[in-house]
């Protein structure tokens, strides 16, 4: 049984993992880079160990330093969180060698799902639908052109080793093929050190829908239903919800079965996510598998009623899942809003800085997972995600209304952030309707970027308040101005009194 877990991550996910460990009476070891000595996960863990300079390659991605920290602290398991080393098969293998439990899948499953072409082939063999396209890596232009002829335009050219939108090119016209192919390969080369690409049918009006799965070491694989993740900007998710507003019960079940089949095909263990692309007719295609916990896992936790981090630890402990597929149900509706330290007025550039003030929403149906506190410097080295708002309602409408209420209460000062932008999304007709695609943000840019007008006298009230605060401060500084003011009051009152006579 695991007694002490080293959390090889930072930010909200490290804090979130430590919370569940605490509830299970498991000790935790945080690791930190130079930039993170004051980070919340360091403060919150039982122990903390320094693992290197601020750039993540030298700290959170440094396998040797993390393994050393685990050995020195006597941790018997490592939880990798998401990002960083979570999908690195070498790290998983290295933990095995060291006799440290890696809370995640075995190296082989990570490797098989990490390479898009292997994954695609494995899924086809397992009968899981994949997007029509080429089955192997393409290295010559002629081959590419003939394949595109077979599939038919539009197509998407993708880096074989890729992710995050890098090395991706959409081709809608014949004359674009060569240029797009070259651009994709050069981008793939520079981003991943590998210029192999593959070609897929481009899905118009696509929905990004993913399935949470859990697989134990005793042959049981179940899914915990879907998450709708189509609200994206630059392939980065912003708002997720579950259940998906577009799925039918029948399609939900079919896709769940496909997700379980996909996980079984790589002999998966632990928690993972099967991402599907779904077209407007609800045809679904395997996109990729994330062999780790997702940022958006809390909406599944809320609607299915399962603590996924605890389940990961139970599985790592060799315990069988203590529920079967038929025990699980979706109860109500949950929405997650991701709060980023970024500047909506400056092309959503990451905006690190010092948090001077936070108001966090509370009350019925509201969960907040975050990593900031007043006085904290959001470092510029890492992902700008600083908090997640997870809201539950008995149905989608209540979840929406409650999310709006909670976002209104949510204030972060000192660090530019997307809170007001998130509010705008929840007021957009396209989102309220529920049938939005991954093009949603782009298509609604004008509405989403518009400033909400100030109602009533609020601007005047704001100016008055700033004025009064300023008076307060200069009075403290110079008592002489005070007496001038008093004289003014007298004069004014005299005038008023005269008028009243």
């Amino acid at each position, binding site marked *: 049984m695991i007694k002490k877990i080293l959390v090889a991550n930072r930010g909200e996910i490290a804090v979130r993992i430590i919370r569940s460990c605490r509830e299970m009476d498991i000790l935790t070891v945080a690791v930190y880079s130079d930039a993170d000595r004051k980070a919340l996960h360091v403060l919150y863990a039982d122990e903390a160990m320094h693992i290197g300079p601020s750039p993540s390659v030298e700290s959170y991605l440094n396998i040797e330093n993390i393994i050393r920290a685990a050995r020195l602290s006597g941790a018997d398991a490592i939880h990798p969180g998401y990002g960083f080393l979570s999908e690195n098969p070498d790290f998983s293998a290295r933990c095995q060698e060291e006799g440290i439990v890696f809370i995640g899948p075995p190296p082989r499953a990570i490797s098989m799902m990490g390479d898009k072409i292997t994954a695609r082939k494995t899924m086809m063999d397992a009968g899981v639908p994949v997007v029509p396209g080429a089955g192997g890596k393409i290295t010559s232009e002629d081959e590419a052109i003939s394949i595109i002829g077979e599939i038919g335009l539009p197509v998407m050219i993708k880096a074989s080793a890729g992710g995050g939108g*890098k090395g991706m090119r959409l081709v809608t016209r014949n004359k674009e093929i060569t240029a797009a192919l070259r651009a994709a390969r050069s981008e793939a080369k*520079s981003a991943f050190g590998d210029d192999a690409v593959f070609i897929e049918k481009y899905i118009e009006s696509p929905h990004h829908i993913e399935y949470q799965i859990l697989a134990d070491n005793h042959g049981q694989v179940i899914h915990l239903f879907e998450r709708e993740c189509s609200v994206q900007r*630059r392939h*980065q998710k912003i708002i997720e919800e579950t259940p998906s507003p577009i799925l039918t019960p029948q399609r939900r079940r079919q896709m769940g079965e496909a997700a379980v089949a996909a996980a079984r095909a790589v002999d998966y263990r632990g928690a993972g996510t099967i991402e599907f692309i779904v077209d407007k007719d609800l045809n679904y295609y395997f996109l990729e598998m994330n062999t780790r916990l997702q940022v958006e896992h809390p909406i599944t936790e809320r609607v299915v009623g399962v603590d996924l981090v605890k389940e990961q630890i139970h599985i790592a402990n060799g315990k069988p899942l203590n529920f079967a597929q038929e025990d699980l149900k979706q109860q109500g509706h949950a929405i997650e809003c991701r709060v980023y330290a970024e500047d909506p007025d*400056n*092309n959503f*550039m*990451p*905006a*690190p800085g010092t948090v*001077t*003030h936070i*108001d966090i929403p509370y009350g019925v149906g509201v969960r907040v997972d975050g990593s900031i506190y007043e006085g904290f410097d959001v470092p*510029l*080295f*890492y*992902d*700008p995600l600083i908090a997640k708002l997870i809201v539950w309602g008995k149905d989608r409408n209540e979840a929406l209304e409650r999310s709006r209420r909670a976002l*209104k209460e949510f*204030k972060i*000062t*000192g660090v530019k952030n997307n809170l*007001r932008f998130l509010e705008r999304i929840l007021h957009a007709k396209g989102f309220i309707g529920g049938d939005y695609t991954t093009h949603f943000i782009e298509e609604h840019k004008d509405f989403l970027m518009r400033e*909400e007008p*100030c*109602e*009533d*006298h*609020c*601007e*005047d*009230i*704001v*100016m*008055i*308040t*700033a*004025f*009064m*605060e*300023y*008076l307060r*401060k*200069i009075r403290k500084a110079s008592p002489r101005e005070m007496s*001038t*003011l008093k004289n*003014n*009051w007298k004069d*004014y*009152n005299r005038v*008023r009194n005269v008028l009243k006579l």
Partner: protein
Amino acid sequence: MSYEIKLQNRIARVELLSRQGDQLLVAVDGKEYSLDFVRIGKGRYSILHKNKSYNVELIPVNGIKKYHVNTFKNTYEVEIIDAESAYLASRHQGQEDDDEAVISSPIPGKVMKVYVREGDAVEAGQTLVVIAAMKMESEFKAPKDGIVRSVSASEGQSVDARQELVTIEFSTENTKS
């Protein structure tokens, strides 16, 4: 006692007409407000106006004249313009329309792409450089039409916050002043 206050793009004169305990009478550009005005904490106020409840939080930005302001519904930038600020503002007026722009990144990162060379003509909105920072790639674009005067960034290079990347000299109808 009155000052000019700037809120976003609006400037108004605010005057304290009278004060009795928490009861204020204030004019904003001559419009009178009778307020129940209570301080509830550092920079935090509760204001009742015709029974409407407003909460205003002021977070100072460098000194006592500039504030980030949070209300329940919005956030603002507010500045007090007193004699000194007014002088600075007037001095700055003439420089507002600069004839060149230095493109720099607000945060440190790595130069991924440089699309222009010295002497290139660029159009407003054209991407000049791509910087990777905080796990994101960001494109830096030309704010107006112009000519690239210098390129200090090179691909693969790490850059500091506010380090010069590209300088653009803007094209103008009546050429240089």
